């Protein structure tokens, strides 16, 4: 009884006390000064290690923390000098020599050298790194063979330096030899996994924490980066605080002293963050909000290098008949899907490759003209294939992952097929990873899919369906297609685009995929945020961002369509310019 009384006295006090302490701990050091700017970055990045990263959240952070040989011009999207101040190509197009900028520093003060690039690229290729994007460098001479020839322990059996044409001649000369001439090599070099990592910092981390350096070296207190910003604090699923990196070669042109990167996946929450001025930019809004955002000056939908299509299991009857596939491809009301379901003004697509590359026309699904004509042809094709009212097409399953608008899109298509072609199409909904697994095992009829460009070139789409490629997942393997791609790999511009277009034409004749639309990003951007430009890769480097002062804001608004609704900005009225820009404006 005495113990019970003791418990009564202390237990009741102790439990809340522990919880209050926990509350205190959870909030201690939790509040930050408001950063100069913040943006929503979607899911928590899986890694800040540039070679390990995969998706958009990781890429956006790499753009802030690191800088590669070249970066995209925010206006034109063309590669402009980054860590490489200049470059040259040999006459045969096989050797690229990059001159690394002198005086650019890592956050620990050391100079960025060509050796850091060689080290990072080797690391990307090494299968032990587990880098999803290792294949970006397979255009480099010897790279693929080196990465794929591994011993029992998973380590490459051959030495890197003597087998792969990636060389740091000296601290400032970085030389890359290619298998074939690659005229779009700079577009590839922009890719986030190709940024350098600090060789000395990583080697020191490996020596200091032999069995847990991966966890340690990306922590803010140990992180060493070379980009416009450095890592100050990271709270998983909350925010990453960045601060301007003063040792960055172009620091004078960076306006923001601090920048917050918010990790939050819930689209409605992100929209709320934006509407209350917590963030200046977010890249996706809920579809249900689009009709109300349309016409606002800060709602900036833009076509995106992503293709929405259906994979077709070409091994499975009746879909093994190309006439059936073609009938189905023709009988999709793409405009209706864009207008009623996805709503962001997606461009109806009749090709795999979005028509968003300079100089690229590509191929299209052959059509007779209007949708009505297409439907006539579709019915005709089904009749030719032996299907009709007396012998209907066996039921087809539309397979999709339970996310966003997938279900609605599939319903519209199934309904249309039923009405127009008399086809029974059932919907099969699976959780994301199960869906991926089913797709990989070809356990589907027709499966909703998408592909996002890794870099700004049509090959990033067309290579997906190369015979034997890891991500084809349609059962389609056509030697003619493989030959065309191989020819394209060896060709120079403009011949290369012509061959790629030929490959796409073949793909759209054989139809292992049914194209639907080209993605649109639905960004919200504070009207005062300067240096932000929509581009097809949706690649934004916060290095270029600044707050427009009142005068500039008024000026940029003057050019707006009068139908566009102005909205209140949450940025500072006096603006925030980079030191260099401040001087330039003062002297004017």
């Amino acid at each position: 009884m005495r113990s019970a009384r003791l418990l009564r006295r202390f237990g009741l006090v102790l439990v809340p006390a522990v919880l209050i302490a926990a509350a205190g701990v959870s909030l201690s050091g939790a509040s930050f000064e408001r950063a100069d700017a913040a943006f929503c970055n979607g899911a928590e990045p899986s890694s800040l290690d540039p070679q390990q990263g995969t998706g958009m959240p990781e890429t956006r952070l790499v753009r802030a923390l690191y800088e590669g040989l070249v970066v995209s011009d925010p206006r034109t999207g063309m590669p402009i000098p980054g860590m490489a101040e200049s470059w040259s190509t040999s006459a045969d197009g096989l050797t690229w020599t990059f001159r690394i900028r002198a005086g650019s520093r890592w956050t620990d003060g050391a100079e960025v050298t060509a050796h850091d690039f060689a080290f990072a690229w080797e690391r990307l290729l090494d299968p032990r790194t587990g880098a999803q994007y290792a294949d970006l460098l397979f255009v480099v001479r010897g790279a693929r063979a080196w990465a794929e020839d591994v011993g029992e322990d998973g380590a490459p059996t051959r030495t890197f330096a003597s087998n792969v044409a990636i060389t740091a001649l000296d601290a400032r000369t970085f030389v890359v030899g290619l298998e074939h001439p690659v005229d779009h090599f700079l577009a590839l070099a922009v890719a986030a996994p190709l940024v350098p990592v600090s060789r000395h910092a990583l080697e020191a981390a490996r020596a200091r924490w032999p069995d847990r350096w991966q966890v340690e070296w990306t922590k803010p207190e140990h992180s060493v980066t070379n980009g416009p910003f450095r890592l100050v604090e990271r709270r998983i699923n909350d925010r990453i605080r960045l601060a301007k990196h003063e040792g960055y070669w172009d620091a004078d042109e960076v306006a923001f002293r601090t920048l917050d990167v918010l990790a939050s996946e819930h689209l409605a929450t992100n929209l709320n963050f934006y509407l209350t001025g917590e963030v200046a930019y977010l890249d996706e809004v809920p579809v249900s909000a689009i009709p109300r955002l349309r016409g606002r000056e800060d709602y900036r939908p833009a076509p995106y290098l992503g293709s929405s299509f259906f994979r077709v299991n070409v091994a499975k009857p009746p879909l093994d008949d190309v006439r059936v596939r073609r009938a189905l491809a023709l009988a999709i009301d793409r405009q209706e899907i864009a207008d009623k379901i996805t709503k962001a003004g997606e461009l109806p697509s009749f090709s795999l490759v979005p028509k968003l590359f300079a100089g690229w026309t590509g191929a299209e699904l052959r059509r007779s003209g209007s949708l009505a004509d297409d439907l006539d042809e579709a019915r005709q094709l089904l009749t030719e294939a032996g299907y009709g009212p007396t012998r209907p097409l066996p039921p087809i399953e539309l397979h999709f992952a339970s996310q966003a608008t997938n279900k609605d899109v599939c319903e519209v298509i199934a309904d249309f097929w039923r009405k127009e072609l008399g086809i029974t199409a059932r919907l099969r909904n699976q959780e994301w990873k199960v869906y991926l697994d089913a797709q990989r095992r070809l356990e589907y009829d027709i499966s909703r899919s998408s592909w996002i460009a890794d870099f700004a070139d049509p090959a990033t789409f067309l290579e997906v369906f190369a015979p034997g490629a890891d991500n084809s997942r349609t059962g389609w393997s056509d030697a003619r297609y493989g030959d065309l791609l191989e020819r394209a790999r060896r060709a120079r511009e403009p011949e290369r685009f012509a061959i790629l277009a030929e490959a796409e034409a073949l793909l759209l004749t054989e139809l292992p995929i049914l194209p639907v639309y080209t993605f649109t990003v639905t960004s919200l951007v504070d009207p005062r945020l300067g240096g932000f430009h929509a581009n097809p890769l949706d690649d934004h480097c916060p290095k270029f961002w600044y707050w427009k002062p009142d005068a500039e804001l008024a000026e940029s608004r003057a050019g707006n369509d009068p139908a566009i609704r102005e909205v209140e900005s949450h940025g500072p009225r006096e603006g925030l310019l980079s030191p260099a820009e401040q001087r330039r404006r003062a002297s004017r």
Partner: protein
Amino acid sequence: MTRFLLRRLAWAALTVLAVASISFVLMRNVRGGPFDSERRASAAVEKNLRERYRLDWPTWKQFAAYVGPFELGEHGPAFLGGDGTDTFGGVLAGDFGPSLQYRDASVNDLLAQSLPISAALGFLALSWALAVGITAGIVSALRRGTTLDVALRITATTGIALPNFAIAGVLVLLFAFVWPILPVAGHGSWRHLVLPSLALGAPFAAYIARLTRTGMLEALGEDWIRTAHAKGLPPRLVVTRHALRAGIQPVISYLGPAAAGVLTGSLVIERIFAIPGTGSHFVNSALNRDYALAMGVTILYTALVCVLNLLVDVVQASLDPRIALEDES
């Protein structure tokens, strides 16, 4: 008392072990793996990743290595050092291993960062739920049948019926947009916890109000209450010192499940308010097939629920002289 505690703790340990082993096996048999993605890595890269996280081992061996600090690797830890992954110390050594999804963090890091936040949120939610719920319950019971009672009961029923995300939506609309006095979401100060804890606690407050009302009504009808009144005790004292102590018993028993409910139920609220708590790991780890993190959260939650239930039993015994812990043997 000590024997009781020891026995309960032993049972708790068994429960955790059972839950852990079942989850471990179930999880590895769910379709799809941690490295499945729209853009798959090459076969060589994937093979290395599987080896790094020992997914190429038979399940029993993975489990043994997971539970205990046994070194079962053929290549030794140096192999794992190939790209710097935390070696697995084993749960018994307090090491939940590396997360498969967040490659920069160990499961220990992730839990240490998120649990205090979830605990703070849950504590606030439960505190106000108790304060408001008990008060409303008492008032309801004392004013039985009046308009006030009916109003409180309707509110309570609504609170139970409404899912917490609906309440969250209304709260955000009211206090972040219409009358912007609180942040719309996020984490960083006590102000960020107000709306989420209100939304999270609302259904519990409502339920507690109903439990208290029922408990109080029953207690107020007891003979010893009449005795207390007859002895001339002021009504306030009769209620607070005598009736409440008995009437609140159902609420105390409910505290265990409620605490567990607040913890596991916070995942929706954490998502809506972008709170970096354990709830989001609970969901995302399953979706990402992040086996290590999912196991970590499962074990942690199981242990917490066991401990909370034990605490409730102890508190209950200390409040009600009729319950003696020793008697259970």
